[in-house]
């Protein structure tokens, strides 16, 4: 039977990478001093599975390497080897190498042999260090090495099962049948041990056999057959040389059993299932490895239920439509309401499929903090909460790098050296917290540290130096924080290889904006700082406020909207150099007239008091967008403008409204840039 093993590769790689995560997380916890049996077991199991799978799927190098790791872990698990920081470090490095091996293997490449050799040598040297059992023989001692020249013309076997043998699920007859497959077998049964009938236990085995196999097979073949039962029977295997007289089996009460003929060959093995071929075709049709997603079966079941409901509603409605009269209007309304509900639920369930826990992203941080802390000579404790908060798969994929950058920043610039912390009366160990939670249809990710906080003076000095602000500007904290996001801004006095330079916070913000999210900073000098990132739960659907300007309709993302207000005349203030502003509580908000930045004809409201002001949170603060009217709030499916056209400044995408027409979705930072560029809002960055 030929089975295409490749079809299991993807699952193997997926679970192996998951296994590596488990190993890494566990090792890091052990590094912290926590040694818990179940922890080591879990790490061992992960290594064991990777070894088993890679061996089975023919990735010998991976299997060999993992075998050494497994041996070490096995000793740790059995308590034969103490868990030392050094051992943990070696294993962590091995996890890295193994990850690279698996990555290379998945891409059809060969792992770097030198790196593998070095790491394997390091593992082996740990294994060879004293206080441990000698390493076991290498796995590549394949069974065939036991092959030896046939020395016998046949075999004489005395096989006396212990009474309990059948209770291990082994059947003496099966063994005899297997022997018979090797060649001509003469079987003599020995019933001398049968007890009197009254003491007979049908579950015990009282028979024994004397077997003559007339086939010049290897001893190994015979051993193999008895492999499972060698402890459950008395066994003697003696070679029969050519011309040697055939011994008669001993024992007085012999009765001959007929020779067992080999069972009729079963054909099942040759029955080819059509599945491997079909899968192969499907795979070869894909040029590149498709991005796949593992979905909890519960989510699929929910989806199927939902579709079932939908089908019922649909058939009910179509029945109603077959013979409709006005008397059924109530039922039609009920049916449509039901359809509406089911469609919405179905949409939610489908969206659920794309949701993954943020732990996929968070899981890399224990290692990162551990390594970086060691490198910087800082003592750092990482606390993570809300790892199970679910977020869209695309967000998971794209938020990783910005988060890494932010965490590195916290470690590098935020947290102080231990002596500095002690001098400041703080605990020696600094804390970095990663929190994720849902709030109002968004996911919030916070990175908090208890470090020194943002250095206002240094930021300001840098900004002056770079000409980002004028000397006499009296900036609020918020405006100071905003400076960090300016392109090219970097406060690290020394360029460290930790935070690097060049890709700065401006890139982080851009990445987050591209995901439809926002970022802000809170900081308390000497107490620490927090970066708060807000992201939409999904990138496929957006909660939007539909607004009208002239004859046109736009969608404003609800995530950006602070409030919508009717402007009264007394709220309008003309500020020199900043144009028209709206006084809202204690703030003066700049105003953007959407019809001006978008060139919309015939707006109903040109005067601020005639329209509505949508107050939005943008880069650098709040501002107001003047529209004619608010139409309503709705969830919209985001469509790309770039698929067939191109990026349009101020527009993040499009959606199709209920009437089939297209409405464009505002990109708030883009609108702001447009307005600033058009001189509509002067110096908006500073004035906000």
């Amino acid at each position, binding site marked *: 039977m030929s089975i295409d093993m490749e079809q299991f590769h993807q699952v193997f790689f997926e679970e192996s990478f998951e296994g590596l995560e488990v190993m890494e997380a566990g090792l890091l916890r052990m590094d912290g001093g926590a040694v818990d049996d179940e922890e080591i077991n879990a790490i061992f199991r992960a290594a064991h599975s990777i070894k088993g799978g890679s061996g089975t799927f023919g990735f010998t190098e991976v299997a060999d390497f993992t075998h050494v790791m497994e041996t070490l872990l096995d000793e740790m698990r059995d308590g034969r080897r103490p868990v030392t920081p050094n051992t943990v470090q070696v294993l962590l490095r091995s996890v890295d190498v193994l990850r690279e091996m698996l990555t290379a293997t998945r891409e059809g490449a060969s792992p770097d042999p030198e790196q593998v050799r070095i790491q394997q040598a390091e593992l082996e040297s740990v294994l060879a260090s004293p206080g441990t059992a000698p390493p076991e023989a290498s796995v590549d001692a394949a069974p065939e090495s036991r092959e030896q020249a046939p020395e016998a013309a046949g075999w004489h076997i005395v096989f006396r099962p212990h009474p309990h043998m059948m209770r291990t699920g082994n059947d003496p007859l099966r063994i005899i049948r297997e022997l018979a497959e090797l060649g001509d077998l003469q079987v003599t049964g020995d019933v001398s041990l049968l007890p009197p009938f009254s003491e007979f236990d049908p579950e015990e085995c009282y028979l024994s056999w004397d077997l003559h196999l007339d086939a010049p097979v290897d001893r190994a073949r015979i051993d193999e057959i008895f492999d499972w039962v060698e402890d459950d029977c008395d066994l003697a295997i003696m070679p029969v040389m050519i011309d040697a007289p055939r011994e008669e089996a001993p024992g007085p009460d012999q009765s001959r059993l007929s020779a067992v003929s080999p069972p009729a060959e079963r054909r099942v093995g040759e029955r080819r299932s059509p599945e491997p071929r079909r899968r192969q075709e499907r795979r070869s049709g894909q040029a590149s490895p498709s991005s796949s997603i593992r979905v909890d079966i519960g989510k699929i079941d929910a989806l199927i239920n939902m579709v079932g409901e939908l089908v019922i509603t649909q058939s009910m409605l179509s029945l109603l439509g077959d013979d409709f009269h006005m008397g059924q209007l109530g039922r039609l309304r009920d049916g449509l309401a039901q359809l509406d509900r089911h469609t919405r639920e179905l949409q939610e369930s489908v969206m659920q499929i794309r949701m993954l826990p943020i732990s996929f992203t968070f899981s890399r941080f224990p290692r990162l903090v551990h390594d970086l802390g060691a490198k910087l000579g800082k003592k750092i404790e990482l606390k993570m909460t809300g790892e199970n908060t679910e977020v869209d798969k695309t967000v998971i994929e794209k938020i990783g790098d910005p988060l890494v950058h932010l965490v590195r920043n916290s470690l590098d610039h935020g947290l102080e050296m231990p002596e500095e912390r002690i001098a400041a009366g703080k605990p020696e160990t600094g804390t970095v917290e990663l929190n994720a939670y849902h709030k109002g249809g968004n996911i919030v990710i916070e990175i908090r540290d208890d470090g020194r906080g943002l250095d206002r003076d240094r930021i300001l000095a840098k900004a002056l130096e770079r000409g980002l602000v004028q000397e006499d500007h009296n900036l609020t904290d918020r405006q100071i924080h905003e400076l960090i996001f300016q392109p090219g801004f970097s406060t690290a006095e020394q360029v460290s290889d930790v935070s690097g330079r060049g890709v700065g916070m401006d890139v982080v913000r851009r990445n987050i904006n591209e995901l439809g999210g926002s970022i802000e900073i809170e900081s308390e000098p000497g107490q620490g700082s927090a970066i708060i990132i807000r992201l939409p739960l999904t990138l496929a659907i957006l909660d939007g406020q539909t607004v009208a300007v002239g004859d*046109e309709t736009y969608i404003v993302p609800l995530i950006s909207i602070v409030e919508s207000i009717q402007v009264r005349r007394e709220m309008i203030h003309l500020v020199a150099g900043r144009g028209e502003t709206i006084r809202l509580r204690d703030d003066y908000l700049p105003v953007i007239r959407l019809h001006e930045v*978008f060139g919309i004809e015939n707006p109903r409201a040109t005067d601020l008091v005639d329209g509505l002001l949508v107050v939005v949170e943008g880069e650098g603060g709040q501002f107001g967008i003047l529209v004619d009217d608010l139409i309503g709030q709705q969830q919209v499916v985001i469509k790309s403008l770039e698929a067939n056209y*191109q990026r349009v400044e*101020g527009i993040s995408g499009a959606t199709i409204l209920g009437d089939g027409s297209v409405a464009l979705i505002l990109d708030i930072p883009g609108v702001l840039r447009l307005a600033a560029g058009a001189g509509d809002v002067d110096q908006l960055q500073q004035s906000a």
Partner: protein
Amino acid sequence: MNAESTIARNHQDTGGAEYLSFRLGDEGYGVDILKVQEIRGWEPVTRVPNAPDYVRGVLNLRGAIVPVFDLRRRLGMEPVAYGKETVVIVVRVQGEEESKSIGLVVDAVSDVMRVTSDSIRATPEFGARLDTGLITGMVTAGERMVMLLDVEGLHQAQAADPATEVGAA
């Protein structure tokens, strides 16, 4: 499917192809029929802010957002009011990475004509009136002159058009 492969084969065997011809004013134009996705009547589209004047907007083509270009304006001709005969030819063009759909507003569709490669002549100079870079050649069909349109160029040129960069500073 069959029709397409027949055309494609003709393309190679005889060095010819079928073109969908259409009118802009008095002039005849042709576009490779293999690039034509569909033809639809003019319907109002959603305007795209700060786009070049030839971009009429975007429409919903079975769930995809497709830009619609006024071909007259795109080629530097005088615009006219749209009427009953105005149609949108949706063409599929090869972009830099993937193919894109674009709608082209033309005065009216004429017919499908067969063009052999040896009948295609080089584009004469039109002076400054027409962007001749988008015309790959001309053929004579009976009494008429038909200019063959380079739809790929149509798309690539618009990406580089400085007008689309308005406000992007």
